[in-house]
């Protein structure tokens, strides 16, 4: 009997340690990645990174300023097109979406949300690059919008559904028209949540690289127009990383620090908003 009790207790101890170790193993890469980013990115992490154009190989200095502007441009375009569409579709699903059509839309949203981002790149390539015969900011933005839209439709629907029915009923009981109730009471109440969803989706598309490879293509110089190839930070990180030059590797790390800085800043904004709401 004694040995059975001992074995049971020992098994309990051992598994406890194993579970704790697995948690450590999960978190460890995060620290390693951030440590390496700061350590290896430090050499090129200076003000010129954010202000200068890329320099050719071997020439010291140079930055990713055109990439930052390009990333903001294509993400901005994607959001300008994506937000109205996604929020309106989300309103439809939350407020009117009970029929067969609505379940088809939900199915489409689920499907789009699971599509690998590189396939959105193919989509944009076929839709814009092939007929226009050139890579462009428009094509990149439409690929990013395809990633952005399903995320925002989902969060908008979920957030609107958290608004209690009593709020809508109170507004309707006061004789406010239904469309006004939806737009100025229900959506207004859920705004913080919807904006959080938009920011999280923005953080996601800012870091996307795969769909830009054959839509934005990248550009060594300042962008000249939205129908022209455009630079983006993730593309610069990728191209510097796979280059054979050491000083470009340093720039890849520095660019990665800038990229993750942008992503974390936006995510932190999203978290701050939800905190205010609570």
């Amino acid at each position, binding site marked *: 009997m004694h040995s059975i009790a001992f074995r049971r207790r020992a098994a309990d101890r051992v598994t*406890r340690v194993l579970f704790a170790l697995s948690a450590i193993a999960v978190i460890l890469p995060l620290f390693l990645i951030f440590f390496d980013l700061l350590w290896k990115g430090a050499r090129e992490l200076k003000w010129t990174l954010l202000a200068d154009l890329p320099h050719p190989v071997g020439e010291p200095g140079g930055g990713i300023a055109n990439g930052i502007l390009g990333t903001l441009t294509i993400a901005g375009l994607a959001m300008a097109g994506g937000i109205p569409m996604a929020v309106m579709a989300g309103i439809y699903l939350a407020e009117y979406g009970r029929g067969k059509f609505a379940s088809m839309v939900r199915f489409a949203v689920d499907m789009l949300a699971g599509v690998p981002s590189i396939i959105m790149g193919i989509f944009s390539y076929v839709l814009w690059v092939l007929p226009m015969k050139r890579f462009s900011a428009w094509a990149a933005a439409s690929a990013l919008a395809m990633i952005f839209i399903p995320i925002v439709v989902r969060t908008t629907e979920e957030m609107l559904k958290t608004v209690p029915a009593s709020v809508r009923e109170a507004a309707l009981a006061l004789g406010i028209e239904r469309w006004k109730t939806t737009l100025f009471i229900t959506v207004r109440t859920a705004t913080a949540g919807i904006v959080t969803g938009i920011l999280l989706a923005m953080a996601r598309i800012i870091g996307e*690289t795969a769909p830009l490879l054959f839509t934005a293509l990248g550009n060594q110089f300042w962008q000249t127009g939205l129908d022209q190839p455009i630079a983006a930070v993730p593309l610069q990180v990728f191209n510097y990383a*796979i280059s054979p030059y050491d000083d470009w590797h340093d720039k890849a790390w520095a660019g990665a620090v800038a990229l993750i800085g942008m992503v974390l800043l936006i995510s932190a904004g999203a978290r701050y908003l939800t905190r205010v709401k609570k």
Partner: protein
Amino acid sequence: MTRKAGDNPKDLLFEKTTAVFAFGVLFLAFLLFALLVRESLPAIRKFGAAFLVTKTWDPVAESFGALPFIYGTLVSSFIALLIAVPLAVGSAIFINEFAPEWLKTPVAFLAELLAAIPSVIYGLWGIFVLVPVLRDWLMKPAASYLGFLPLFKGPVYGPSMLAAGMLLSIMIIPFILSVSREVLATVPRLQKEAVLSLGGTHWEMIRIVIGQHCIPGIFGATILGLGRALGETMAVTMVIGNRPDILLSIFQPGYSMAAVIANEFTEATGELYLSALVEIGLVLFLLTFVVNFAAKWILKTMVSRAARGL
């Protein structure tokens, strides 16, 4: 809510306007699928079903088969799951059942932060940190002692199926972890307390309760992680080695469906070459589609069973 939309023309107009945007989303999904199929047609017509089981990938001779890429995608994702599932489920159990209150939120937050890191940064870290470390500390010794096994055969280059699988595992852990935590949270508290009150240890409680309740849900979480791993592009492209061969050894370079699209799309000259790449995209699309909906279905039935108290 009690009024009908038809009572007021403005209400009707607003409803129809939102419906138009909802239809737009539906149309985009349809357009995506239709364009993929249309652009794949030349390759589908030329190679038929043999495309999926042909090993040659020769752009010069315009002879295309997707097998090496399908193989690479499946094997690297499988390696990722082998590593990620035990770690993710283990830490989900740790966070939900063992961790002191003050530790729960920070650990869960840090694990979630892994999901916020862009794929290209994982790839960068993979090239310059993970691959050299794996090569010198794991693959070289393993190949010299266990090299007689086909699975660990050298020569060791660094970029490999194993490196891709390990990097992928880090990337999919947060998804499996958060779904596993949700699954664990559906276990009725009474049942856990029942085991403990009968004198069971914590480990016995977990074993019994998980055996009873959580296996289907954890399976669903695994399939969800698989859906993520299959389509991951940049990180895999940067460490898998990009060689379209089918080699048994996980120390050898491979190629994946997403990686070949990423690498060769801009240089695809000729209609058939481009079409073959789009068809690989179509196959990847269908594969992730099936896997994602399988995961959703498993998790949904699991949740409804838990709601009924089974």
